[in-house]
Each structure stands twice: as structure tokens, then as C-alpha cells.
């Protein structure tokens, strides 16, 4: 008899450890496995029991449910409890997914080096660096951090740049609100990331790797460090490739790759001018392959199953799967790994079940705080990089934040500017000063002070920020502002408010 209790931060935030303590107090001899989350977060804490009859789930379990679960014979897989779910893989929300990158997440003991086989690495070791780069190119994998740059091309540049020292840096500074896929895989399948980085190291001939992890994730740091220690002990790491975690310090801009490199070097997280590209002159001036967590964690599948197997998923130029993180005010929030191409509407209503509050969905913000707000009229947009760009929006890292009709879009626009003013690194003027002026101008518009002039000023300011900023922080902050203004003018006092239904 085995019980699976996730050590995922979200599960713990809902009391998974307290549930664990209550179970072991009653059954001290039971075998406990700490897995990652399955990503069906409305069912967390989701506890699974493996008996002779198979593996079945219960959720959402809180400490108050423990007595009745025991009564229902929960350690034997008793099905007469309202929280009984049956097999998790057979739940509708799970069946609709294509779990390539997250295949192992939540399934087995996250930290067991015996369960994780490193099969992709074995294959990679038989290939030349160029062959690995070619496989990644053929797969069509693009950077999952948001910019969607073809990973194979980036690696080719690093491979082609001769240097006695090269680095692999993993960007685990998952600062965008509405994103948690990086955290989830680092906690639920850390060896997948480690293996991806080891393959990357072989592909570009790097000897040192760093994972730059945000400090808001202390639980992730603990699990990932344990995984790295175990990987050293099992002899996977330390043979020509070393790996270390470095903690960020609460700065959003350090998710921008050049600011991240500055931070890793022990400096203020100020962005760098490009060129030179980090692939040519990156960390400590050496060629550096800098990739997002999910990008690197997608590598083992590609090497193990082949580029073609990955390429067969997706739509158009958006190959493979997107790890959609559906959250905010939504009934069934979670991580859904699906082929590119599912429509936003299907995601929001078919999978997400509408809002958690039961009110109508007013808008969704995709791609983090720098992503546009989408209006209901755009909900038919298929989730691919190209279709979102056409709709004036951004897919980014795959985060989708849902808002019901109580949201005030003028306040959201103001928040976008305010966030930029707090998190701007300060290097370029449009971002540093523009965001502060943006807050002031939006305040004036809201309180009807010279509204027409200030609207013109805001649009002008947004144009300067878009065209004149050095990086995406200042360059994309206007996206949520202008989309809010365009689609929800009534919230800015520009049109009479629609009467509530």
C-alpha cells in the first residue's frame, strides 16, 4: 500500500503536509511517496492511493476530511467517499492533454534517481554535439520563456563560438503572474530539467550550468537542491558538467536574459545592450546558452522519442505542446499541456468551466503582466504564437489569467504602468520615467482631468515606450494598457457604462 502526497508548493499551501501528518499518525507503517502535482489545482491537495486494484485519487483533501476518509476505507482505495476521483489519468481534464514535457510530473517519486532513467541523456551521449543541435532544430522547439526564439538556432550559435569555457544557464526566474509551470516541473520532475541541461551542455560543449531561481520559491529551491545532490551522488553530474542553483532576490527584471546574467555575476540586474548576444558573449563574457525551464525540460522527450515525435504535435509554426497555465478567477485552474492550436474559448469554458465566482468572464490576460488583455470577441483565437500575434496579443509563457465582470480595466491599466515603474531596471528613459508618467496620466483620465488631451498623451507615451525601450519590460508594458483602453473604454469613463445584466 502506497500513498502519494504532493510536495508541490501549491499543494503544501493548501495543507498537504498537515494531511500527511494525520495519515502517518494513524498508519505509521504506510509507504509515503512525495510526488509533484498533477496540475489539476482545483483538486489539490490531491492524494493518491496505490492498492492491488490500481491507483486512485481523492481530492481536494483538507485536514477536516481525514476522519471521514478513514471511515470510507481510504487507504484501501475505498470508493464510497464524495472526494473519491477514481483514476486521475481518466479524469476528463487529464485525458484531453498531451503530456510530453510533463509526462512524469506528479506520477512518481520526484526525487528518486531509481525511478528516473536518464534515457535521453544516454542517447545524446552517442550523438555528436552537432547531431543534438540538429535534433532540436528539427523538432521545431521554440523558447518557452515567452520570446519563442528557435532553441536549435540559439544552440548552434553557442556551439559555433569557440571558447575554452561555456555556460548553460537556466532561467528559472518565473516572475510573470499567472505562470507556475517552471515551479511545477522543478518540484515534480526535477531530473527532467537536470537531464535537459546535461544534454544542452553536451550540445554546446559547456562545462558549467547555473539555474537562476527566484527567491519567492524557497520550497522549489529545497527540492531542486536535493535533486542536484542526488544526481551528483548517482554519478550523473560532476563528470565534465557541474550544476549549481543561484537565487534571485525579488527583482522581476532579472527574468530578462541579460539582466539575469548581470545578476548572476553579482551585479544590479540592469539589462545589457545587444549585440553582443549572450550566445556569443554571455555570462562572464563567455558563450552562454540561456534557456527557460520548460524549454530545457522539453529536451529529454525530443532526444528520447525523436524530433519527429515532437514536431507531430502543434499547429503551423508553433510545434509541440504548450504548457497552458490557466488561473485567476476560473473554476478549474491548472496546468494543461496541450498541442498548440486549442482555442481560447475552448480553454476557458470547455476546460476551465468559466469563472470561479460564477459571473461572466470579462477578459483574460495572456503571457504575464506585459501581455495584452483580450476581449470576449477575440476568444476564438487559436493558441499559437502566430494567431496571438495577429490578434495583437502574446502567448508568452502560456499563462492565462481570467477575470470576471467585476474587474475595473482602468485600474488594471494603471497597475501595468505601476508595476513597470516598480520593476524597471532604470537603464532606459522610456521605461524608467515613462511608466511613472503613465500612472499619472491614467489617474488624470480616470478622474476626468483634461481627458481628451491626456488620452492623446497616453497614446503618445505608449508609442515612445514601445519603440524606444531597450527591452520587453518598457516595450511591452503598453500592451495591457492599450488593449484595456481599446476594448473597455467605458471603464475609463469614455463611454457610458453598460448596465449590468
Amino acid at each position: 500500500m502506497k500513498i502519494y502526497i504532493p510536495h508541490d508548493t501549491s499543494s503544501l499551501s493548501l495543507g498537504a503536509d498537515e494531511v500527511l501528518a494525520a495519515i502517518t499518525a494513524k498508519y505509521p507503517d504506510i509507504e509515503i511517496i512525495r510526488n509533484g502535482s498533477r496540475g489539476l489545482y482545483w483538486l489539490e491537495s490531491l492524494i493518491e492511493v496505490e492498492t492491488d486494484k490500481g491507483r486512485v485519487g481523492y481530492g481536494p483533501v483538507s485536514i477536516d476530511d481525514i476522519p471521514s476518509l478513514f471511515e470510507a476505507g481510504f487507504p484501501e482505495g475505498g470508493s464510497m467517499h464524495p472526494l473519491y476521483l477514481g483514476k486521475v489519468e481518466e479524469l476528463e481534464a487529464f485525458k484531453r492533454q498531451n503530456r510530453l514535457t510533463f509526462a512524469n510530473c506528479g506520477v512518481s517519486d520526484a526525487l528518486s534517481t531509481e525511478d528516473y532513467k536518464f534515457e535521453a541523456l544516454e542517447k545524446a551521449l552517442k550523438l555528436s554535439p552537432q547531431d543534438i543541435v540538429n535534433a532540436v532544430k528539427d523538432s521545431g522547439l521554440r523558447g518557452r520563456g515567452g520570446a519563442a526564439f528557435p532553441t536549435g538556432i540559439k544552440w548552434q550559435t553557442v556551439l559555433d563560438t569557440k571558447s575554452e569555457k561555456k555556460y548553460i544557464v537556466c532561467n528559472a526566474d518565473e516572475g510573470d503572474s499567472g505562470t507556475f509551470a517552471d515551479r511545477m516541473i522543478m518540484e515534480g520532475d526535477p531530473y527532467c530539467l537536470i537531464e535537459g541541461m546535461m544534454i544542452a551542455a553536451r550540445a554546446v560543449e559547456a562545462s558549467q550550468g547555473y539555474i537562476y531561481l527566484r527567491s519567492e520559491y524557497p520550497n522549489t529551491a529545497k527540492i531542486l537542491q536535493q535533486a542536484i545532490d542526488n544526481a551528483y551522488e548517482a554519478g550523473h553530474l560532476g563528470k565534465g558538467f557541474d550544476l549549481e542553483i543561484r537565487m534571485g532576490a525579488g527583482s522581476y527584471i532579472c527574468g530578462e536574459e541579460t539582466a539575469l546574467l548581470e545578476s548572476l555575476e553579482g551585479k544590479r540586474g540592469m539589462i545589457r545592450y545587444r549585440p553582443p548576444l549572450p550566445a556569443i558573449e554571455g555570462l562572464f563574457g563567455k558563450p552562454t546558452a540561456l534557456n527557460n525551464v520548460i524549454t530545457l525540460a522539453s529536451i529529454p522527450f525530443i532526444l528520447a522519442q525523436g524530433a519527429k515525435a515532437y514536431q507531430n504535435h502543434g499547429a503551423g509554426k508553433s510545434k509541440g505542446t504548450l504548457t497552458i497555465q490557466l488561473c485567476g478567477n476560473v473554476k478549474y485552474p491548472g496546468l494543461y499541456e496541450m498541442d498548440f492550436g486549442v482555442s481560447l474559448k475552448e480553454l476557458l469554458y470547455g476546460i476551465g468551466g468559466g469563472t470561479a465566482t460564477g459571473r461572466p468572464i470579462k477578459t483574460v490576460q495572456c503571457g504575464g503582466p506585459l501581455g495584452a488583455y483580450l476581449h470576449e470577441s477575440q476568444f476564438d483565437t487559436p493558441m499559437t504564437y502566430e494567431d496571438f500575434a495577429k490578434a495583437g496579443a502574446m502567448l508568452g509563457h502560456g499563462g492565462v489569467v481570467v477575470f470576471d465582470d467585476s474587474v475595473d480595466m482602468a485600474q488594471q491599466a494603471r497597475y501595468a504602468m505601476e508595476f513597470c515603474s516598480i520593476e524597471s531596471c532604470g537603464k532606459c528613459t522610456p521605461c524608467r520615467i515613462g511608466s511613472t508618467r503613465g500612472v499619472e496620466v491614467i489617474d488624470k483620465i480616470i478622474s476626468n482631468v483634461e481627458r481628451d488631451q491626456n488620452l492623446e498623451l497616453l497614446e503618445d507615451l505608449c508609442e515612445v515606450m514601445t519603440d524606444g525601450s531597450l527591452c520587453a519590460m518598457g516595450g511591452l508594458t503598453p500592451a495591457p494598457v492599450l488593449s484595456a483602453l481599446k476594448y473597455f473604454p467605458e471603464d475609463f469613463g469614455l463611454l457610458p457604462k453598460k448596465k449590468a445584466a
Partner: protein
Amino acid sequence: MTNWNAEAAQKIVQGKANLPGALLPVLHALQAEFGYINPDFVPEIAKALNLSRADVHGVLSFYHDFRDKPPSERVIKICRAEACQAMGASKLEDHIKRSDVTLEPVYCLGNCACGPAVMIDDKTYGRVTPEKLEELLS
């Protein structure tokens, strides 16, 4: 957390001084031990890492995490980002106006599917209501 002690701080700095890009790991280690970084100690850090005092001060003041004075016994971070806003996190902020805790803003705890999210010391909590917050703090 222990009270500031220059000798112990010096040991922590020396232990990490040889790392490439050592400043952030050094500052994190100091803050983990003492809860803050004493501004009077900046020259010592600069000397040990062969940096200017301005370099060290610049880094200390750039990052939100680093404190220059000791925090209260409890540090509470309420997520202010969009996903938690959508679930009414601002109500929590209004709720907790008390002097015995250090309230720090945070933009995303990665708990977006279980918002509103709050971090108390190093532990994250999800689906937090004003009542639950009160319970956690009592």
C-alpha cells in the same frame, strides 16, 4: 535569526567570497543568518570581494529582497499580481493593518492557480480568506 555580529558576518562572507559572482550569495547568506544586512558592514563586504562600496550599496538597494534593518518577528507577503487580484487579494491587504508584522509586497508567488496567495515567513498559503489570514496570524 540571530543578532548582528560582525565577526560571524565576516566568516559568512569569507566562506562565499571565492564563488564566481559572489555578491548575491553573500548577501543572501547574511540575510538568512541575521534577517537583514547591516549597512555599516558594507565596506567589509566590498573589501572582501574586491568591489567598491558603491557596487555593494548599489546591489543592496536594487533588489527588493535585501533589508537594511531587522524585520519584525513575522514577515508577511501578500501577492499583488494579476492572478491573485482576480481572486480578491486586495481585500487581504486592507484587512491586515497591524504594526506587529512586517508586510512586504510581492508580485507572484507561483501559486496562481490557488489564489489569493500569501507567504508568511517562508511558507506559502493558498485560497486565503480574511478569516483564514486572521487564523494564521493568531
